[in-house]
């Protein structure tokens, strides 16, 4: 992502020139070393990040199905055919993708907003030292530490209609009729379920980042504002929020990208029979390409997703950077 650093005041060359001639000579011969050190990283970066991306884009122009999957070179060129199917709203596949995209947008908006809100509330609550603070910090971070699969599968059990603890709780609180227990893993409630699980998994990260950010704020600011009679909410708005600006900019972007791409939550919570209300886009693409060996179409959908996320990320960064330079 775009990281801007202040330009160095003196270039390495000028500083070298101030050294003696012998020193200069030695620096000359060693100049390969930094490159040699980063070379493996560059090679791996290209290998791990770039190759699959380029391969994916290339596949999206092929009719790569079960007939050609064992020998990719035999796959006929499809031009933009896969993309035409993906963006056509009248075609069954295109309509399903559009629907999944809309659901994912709603899901992302809610999960990011609530995860950030919860993380912020918890971080601020634990900002001052008090007895037992470490215990709360640890408890709040548990969802982040639990192995992902174990955490989500536990939610799946909790959400079960017949034996799940959620329905038992709702019954004991007289919120639902025991004769008509609601379903949480199928039907329209599935949307709410996957949101709850995703927030549960995501908010500790927001909490951790914001907590780290809060450590850097100078206590004097709070003391000075308290002397001026500022109430806690005013302090939060006028001091905490602006001081956390840098953290928030990165945090919201990362939360957005993670949540939009979320594959694990729907895949583990719902399994292969994904309910329409929980039809999140990453798992949707998987279900409609990989499991039917229709890779060309899957790659086209993935490329569209990549383009969308790139546009949103770049627009977001331009927007927040301009705002922060104006401020």
């Amino acid at each position, binding site marked *: 992502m775009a990281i801007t650093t202040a330009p160095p005041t003196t270039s390495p060359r000028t500083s070298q020139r101030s050294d003696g001639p012998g020193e200069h000579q030695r620096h000359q011969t060693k100049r390969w070393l930094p490159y040699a050190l980063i070379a493996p990283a560059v090679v*791996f970066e290209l290998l791990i990040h770039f190759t699959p991306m380029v391969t994916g884009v290339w596949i999206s122009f092929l009719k790569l199905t079960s007939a050609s999957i064992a020998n990719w070179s035999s796959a006929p060129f499809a031009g933009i055919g896969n993309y035409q199917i993906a963006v056509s709203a009248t075609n069954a596949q295109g309509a399903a993708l559009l629907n999944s995209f809309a659901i994912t947008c709603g899901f992302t908006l809610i999960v990011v907003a609530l995860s950030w809100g919860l993380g912020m509330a918890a971080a601020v609550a634990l900002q001052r030292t008090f007895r037992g603070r470490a215990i709360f910090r640890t408890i709040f971070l548990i969802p982040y530490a639990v192995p992902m699969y174990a955490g989500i599968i536990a939610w799946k059990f909790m959400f079960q209609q017949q034996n799940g603890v959620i329905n038992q709780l709702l019954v004991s609180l007289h919120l639902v009729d025991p004769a008509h227990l609601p379903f949480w893993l199928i039907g329209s409630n599935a949307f709410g379920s996957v949101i709850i699980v995703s927030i549960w998994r995501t908010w500790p990260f927001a909490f951790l980042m914001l907590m780290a950010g809060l450590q850097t704020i100078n206590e004097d600011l709070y003391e000075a504002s308290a002397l001026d009679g500022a109430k806690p909410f005013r302090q939060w708005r006028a001091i905490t929020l602006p001081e956390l600006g840098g953290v928030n900019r990165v945090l919201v972007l990362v939360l957005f990208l993670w949540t939009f791409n979320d594959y694990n939550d729907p895949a583990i919570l719902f399994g292969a029979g994904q309910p329409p209300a929980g039809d999140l886009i990453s798992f949707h693409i998987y279900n409609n390409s990989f499991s039917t060996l229709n890779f060309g179409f899957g790659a086209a959908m993935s490329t569209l997703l990549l383009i969308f996320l790139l546009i949103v990320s770049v627009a977001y960064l331009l927007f927040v950077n301009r705002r922060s330079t104006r401020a």
Partner: protein
Amino acid sequence: MKFSRRTKLSAALVAAVSLALVATGCSSGGGSTSGSNGSGSTITYWASNQSGGPTSDDVKILTPILAHFTKTTGIKVNLEVISWNDLQNNINNAVSSGSGPDVLNIGNTWAPYLAATKAFVPFEGKAATAIGGTSRFVPSALATGGLAGQAPTSVPYIGLTYGLFYNKAMFSAAGLTPPTSWEDMVSDAKKLTTGGVEGMGLVAGSYTENVHFAFILGEQNGGAWYDSSGKPTFTTDANVQGVLRYLNLMQDDKVVSTADAEHTDGSQAPADFAKGKIAMFVSQNNANTTLTADGMDSSKYGVVPIPTTAGGKNIASGIQGINLSIFKNSKEQAADLQFIKFMTSSYAQSAIGLPFGTIPVAKGIKPQFSTDKDFQATFQKIYNTQAAPYPLVASEGAFEQNVGTAVNGLFATIATGGKVTASDVKAALQTAQDKTEATQ
């Protein structure tokens, strides 16, 4: 910048290790080819989870059988038992990456689409001879081995069919005899649906189960899911009415609990049945191993073919089962062929018969998939006379995924209080068909 000698050393080490990783990561693991009979070689075998228990049970069952094979042929077998949730993914991965096991189990309904990938060895010519010929297999089972009109790329290994399991005590207490028609089954189920007990149990949240019943009930109605030229015909009236009849067990007949719409794995219905919470359930014959594990003795239940409607076609099951395939990239094909010959021999088939609950797939092998004679006779009869083959087309995988998921969705609608009509079913099947056609 100044670097100490130690830093430079470790940096060089990091670079060297990284390069080594790249080098090894890119080279494919080559194996040594051995003699023409495969003796002295090692093959990797992916087995599906057939024991009705955890995969470790399968390892226990298969280990002595494989040891016998190693003793007689000198071929070592590296066994990996893979759970059903992962098997198809792993196979798809192997096909698309080109690296996988030597020999593997596949669900026989996957055979056509896997045949279309050309990633598996066709059993013709020398390969067919090496496994003792293909004519020794039960013809209907062998017919599931690949694409229509082509040499099979898999041979049958485990034979299974669907049947209707019923609780004997509940039936006699209600003065009922096992149903022989669909209408009987529904009326029996209604009588048996009383406080705390449901007439029937379904795995209505499993797309694989749902597509099997969509297929079977469509076939009973005289429908077909593909025409003779291999084009999908999902939305014919026979198929729509078949799916609706299946859905109505929950919707109109109300003999299936709405809770079943959430059931995604095949062990839940047998568990409910063993606890006496349901009077009937439909399952493949190997459910008896699960029922035994759940503590229900085979004398407590009986089986009959899934009945058809008055005037319907006498189909009670698809030809279910597990096939064996050889991965084309295997370097030990001589050994692979010997292994397949062995696994389909009377020795291995007898050894797996009872623990895996398998109906023999080769001629002349004594059925021994149950200790209960009636149980065995009923399933053997269904397998031989009432089972229809699934569509042998390349888009079979997409058919299963799309139709199965569509039925999942319809069950969910019913369970959450919605109403499903014939036109809803037709619309859902049309979407499934459009999606399936897009993969062709």
